[in-house]
Each structure stands twice: as structure tokens, then as C-alpha cells.
């Protein structure tokens, strides 16, 4: 069973990512970051002296395959810890597998919240950790009319629900809510872009994920949408920027807990090591940073607890903060999610320049339904630092 901790044998970690499929370009960076963390742990003596050995397969961005691979990693490869998953439906496919086997999944991406499993550590942000800041920023800058576009699945639909509520609370207006499939065709996206051009919203809130996101930004640029509209996103990271020709997303905003441009010693080390290992042209992003920090945290906890049992790891992590590239983070003992650092950045010269960041880590509240109005006016303990316009 997963809970044995044999000091004479290597510790197998299953890295659940896609190397092909529409989300592979992000998941590849998550995989690299997981690998980097494992190599750093091994270089520092392993987990209580045990060498950490990663196993991975190509999950093809396919939930059914994620679930099969999770079973194979635990049952056949002897993995006692799993790290990974990007889209919500892939996590949902893996959760029953780890619950049945008493194993642990460290989930390496932001998601829509409303989940708790004793067998999962949720590493990424939930809506209370980025949408509220983004909505406040956009409406504070005069945004009144919003146009919502997303991929048709749980995360964009829930994010849009939150965004619409916040917009309505502040007497703004949602002009449209549109969804496209993960493998959306150019023509379908173009119809939406033409509609955006006709409606001239102040803000396009974009939660299109996968390769379609790049096409969407391209079409927006072609249609000259940027002239009177800001595109704001939770999912356009450095990985998506890397797929776009320079200048395409200039001026647009993303809210996330990490950007490569975060200035901290831990982040400089992270970026340097990653680029030294995978190539100087490689760029980091929030999903990769989450995978990296989470892998480090879970392995360190396993070493301290001399166990891979989920409840012991959670207990340890709740008491032990980690110096992540985004800042000091820690696990919330009650809900299994992380205290994280919300930030907003603007694309400038094909990079993200941070324009607002929380002055303290924000407690995760994955079951928050009604984000407005009380939370709206509650500022972080110290006022958010403005680091730009």
C-alpha cells in the first residue's frame, strides 16, 4: 500500500502530465518544473536518504487516460505520490483513484474551488485569490462593460459566474457570455471576435485555455480590438505568450499568483536553474511555479514525517511554510489549499510587468460562493502595493 516508507528503496513519484494534446505546451513546463524540483531534492540528499525517481507517461490531455495512468503509476510502478494535472476534468478523473488507494495527489494548477479531498493537496489559486483583485482593478480603471469568453468546462463557467456577480454589484454590465470547445476552430473564434468588435466592451474577460487561446488573441489583434478594449485573463501565462508572435498581447492583463518577473531571491534561483536545465530561451509561468513549489513541499514533508501518508504530510505542511518563487506560502490545515500571493501583470514588450500585488499571502476560501459585496471592500491587512500603473 502507498503508506509504507522503506528507507532502502527509492521513492517513486508519478508525474501526471500531457506531452501531446491541446494543453501539452503548459503541462510540459509543469513537468519540467516537477523534474527540476526532484533533481534538486536528490542533489541535496534525497528524501530521508531515499533517492526520488520520477515516472511519467503522455496523458494526451485526456481525462480517461489521466485516470488510467494514475492507476498504473500507483499499482504497477509503485508510486506513492502523484504530482500534476492541469485542467479540472483531469484532476476529477484522478481523485477517485487516489482516494481508493489511500495515495496523495499534489494538484499543480489553479481551479474553480468547491472541492475537498483528504487525499489531495491543492497547490494553485481558487477564485477568491485572483478574480476579486482582477475585477477591482478593472473596474477601478473605469471598466464598465464586460464581455466573457471561455472554454466550455467547469473552470471558465465558474469564474464567469463570479465575475458577473462582481460586475453587477458595481453597476457594471455583462454584454455576453460565450463558450467554445477545447479544440475550437478559427472560424468559431472569429465569430466571437467580430461580435466583440461590434459591441465594443471595455473589458474582454478571457478564460479560453489551450492552443485556442493563442488563436483568439491573434484574431483580436487582427480585428483591432485592443484600441478600445482590455483583454483580461486568468489563464494566459508566459507559456501562452511564448506561442504568440511578439506584440500580439501587448497591453493586456493577467491575474495570477506568479509571473517570471517576480522579484525575489527564490525566484531568481528558480529561473536560473530552470533555464540552465532546459534552455535559456525557456520561460516560466504560474502553473510551472506551482508544480515546482508543490513538489518541493511534498517531498520535504515526506522526509520530515518519514511517511507518504496523506494526513501526515498535510499536518506537516500546515505547520511548515515554504519559500516559493512567488513568496512564502503554506498549506491551510482546514481546507487543504494554499495561502498564495495574488498579482496582476500587464503584457509589455512580450513579457509580464507586475502592476499590482498583494502585500500578504491570501488565505484560500475554496467554498466561497458570494464574493460580493463584503469581500469587495476588504483590503489585505496592509494596502496592496502599487508597483506600476
Amino acid at each position, binding site marked *: 500500500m502507498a503508506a509504507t516508507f522503506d528507507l532502502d528503496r527509492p521513492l517513486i513519484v508519478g508525474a501526471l502530465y500531457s506531452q501531446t494534446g491541446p494543453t501539452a505546451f503548459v503541462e510540459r513546463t509543469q513537468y519540467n518544473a516537477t523534474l527540476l524540483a526532484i533533481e534538486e531534492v536528490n542533489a541535496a540528499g534525497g528524501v530521508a536518504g531515499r533517492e526520488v525517481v520520477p515516472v511519467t507517461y503522455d496523458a494526451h490531455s485526456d481525462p480517461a487516460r489521466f485516470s488510467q495512468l494514475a492507476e498504473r503509476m500507483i499499482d504497477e510502478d509503485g508510486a506513492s505520490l502523484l504530482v500534476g494535472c492541469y485542467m479540472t476534468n483531469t484532476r476529477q478523473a484522478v481523485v477517485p483513484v487516489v482516494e481508493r488507494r489511500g495515495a496523495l495527489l499534489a494538484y499543480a494548477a489553479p481551479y474553480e474551488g468547491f472541492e475537498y479531498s483528504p487525499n489531495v493537496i491543492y497547490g494553485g489559486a481558487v477564485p477568491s485569490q485572483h478574480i476579486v483583485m482582477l475585477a477591482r482593478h478593472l473596474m477601478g480603471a473605469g471598466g464598465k462593460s464586460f464581455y466573457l469568453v471561455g472554454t466550455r468546462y467547469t473552470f471558465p463557467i465558474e469564474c464567469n459566474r463570479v465575475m458577473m456577480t462582481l460586475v453587477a454589484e458595481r453597476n457594471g454590465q455583462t454584454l455576453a457570455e460565450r463558450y467554445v470547445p477545447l479544440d475550437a476552430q478559427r472560424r468559431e473564434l472569429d465569430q466571437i471576435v467580430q461580435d466583440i468588435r461590434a459591441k465594443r466592451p471595455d473589458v474582454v474577460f478571457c478564460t479560453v485555455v489551450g492552443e485556442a487561446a493563442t488563436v483568439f488573441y491573434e484574431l483580436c489583434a487582427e480585428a483591432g480590438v485592443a484600441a478600445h478594449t482590455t483583454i483580461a485573463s486568468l489563464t494566459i501565462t508566459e507559456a501562452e505568450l511564448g506561442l504568440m508572435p511578439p506584440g500580439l498581447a501587448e497591453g493586456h492583463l493577467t491575474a495570477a499568483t506568479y509571473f517570471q518577473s517576480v522579484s525575489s531571491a527564490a525566484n531568481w534561483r528558480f529561473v536560473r536553474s530552470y533555464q540552465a536545465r532546459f534552455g535559456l530561451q525557456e520561460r516560466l509561468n504560474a502553473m510551472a511555479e506551482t508544480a515546482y513549489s508543490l513538489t518541493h513541499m511534498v517531498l520535504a514533508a515526506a522526509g520530515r514525517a518519514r511517511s507518504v501518508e496523506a494526513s501526515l504530510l498535510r499536518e506537516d505542511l500546515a505547520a511548515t511554510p515554504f519559500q516559493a518563487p512567488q513568496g512564502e506560502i503554506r498549506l491551510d490545515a*482546514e481546507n487543504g489549499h494554499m495561502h498564495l500571493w495574488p498579482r496582476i501583470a500587464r503584457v509589455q514588450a512580450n513579457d509580464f510587468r507586475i502592476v499590482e500585488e498583494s502585500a500578504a499571502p491570501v488565505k484560500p*476560501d475554496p*467554498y*466561497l460562493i*458570494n464574493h460580493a459585496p463584503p469581500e469587495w471592500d476588504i483590503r489585505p491587512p496592509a494596502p496592496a502595493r502599487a508597483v506600476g500603473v
Partner: protein
Amino acid sequence: MLKALRDIRDVRVVVFHPKDRECDELVAQLRRIGCQVEAIWPPREGLLPLADVVFMLFRQDGFTHVLLKALAERGPDVTLVGIVEFESPAVIEAVARAGVGAIVTKPIRAFGLLTSMVVAQTLSTREKSLLDRIRKLEDKLGGFRRLEKAKSILMTRKGWSEKEAYEAIRSRAMSARVAMDVVCSTIIDAEELTGP
């Protein structure tokens, strides 16, 4: 937004379940959802704390019986969610008769609790408003019946037409500044006292 969803953080929940790991897990999840939670065990006779939602373990024992009695006295203001550990017909019947809005099966897990609670709350709100409407309709129907009866008394006694009887009741109500229903009741009472 659905009211039961919007107001979920104002909901006061009481859990009646023996104190064990599953009970802890249930209470922890209700707190994650953001409700105010109190776990009580064992339940005491005649004492039901203030609650909007009650989670209650259905067993064939005295506790279950006492709780159900207290809940029945409290009326439809409390939403009941049944926790079940057996699927025997006797338990099913008890759960169905108690009027639960949702059930939670053992072993208890976090997933599904929010949905169960919101569905149960929505159902019990709907039931309450339907009961209110039925009460109002019954009142109205009784009023119609009394009007018909009072008119027929006047028509028999005074030899008036239906229209004259109606006008008489209406003008009496106007001059005495009371509802027509009050005049009708007076006529019916007097008829019962003095009639053949």
C-alpha cells in the same frame, strides 16, 4: 443567484451524530463551506437548539425517536438532512416519513454535502411557501362558502333576490366598517341560534 446558495454562510447547522471521525469530517466540511456548525451528542429530550438545518443520523433507537418528535413540534422552519447507514425498509420508511430534504450516506465524505444541503434548503423553502399559499386559499374558500350561505339565509328569510342579498351584506359591512366575511359570519351565527 439561488437564495439558498447566496445565504449559505448565514446558515446555522446542528449535527446529531455520535462523536467520531466521520462526525469530525462532516463538521469540518460544513465549516469549509462557511456555515455555523454545532455538533451535539447525545441529544437531550425536549431540547432542540436554534437551527436552520439539522443533520441527523437515523437509527432505530430512542435518540432518533426523541429527535424526530422535537423536530415535528418545531414545524417546517427546520430543514432536515438524514444521515443513513442502513438501507433496510424500516430505515427508509422512517427517513421518508420524517420529511427529509436530502440524505447523506455513510461513510460520510465531503463531496456532495453542499449540494445536498442546498437542495434540501430549496425544497423546504418551496414547501413552506406552498403551505402558506394553501392556508391563504383555504381562508379565501371559507369566505366564499360563508358568503353563499349568508346570501341564501337572507333570500329565504326576506324573500330577496341574490343580488339584493349581496347588496345588503355589502352595505352593512361598509357602514359598520368591517369585512363582508364578518357580516356573513354574524348572519350564519344568528341563523344557527334562531333558525328552525
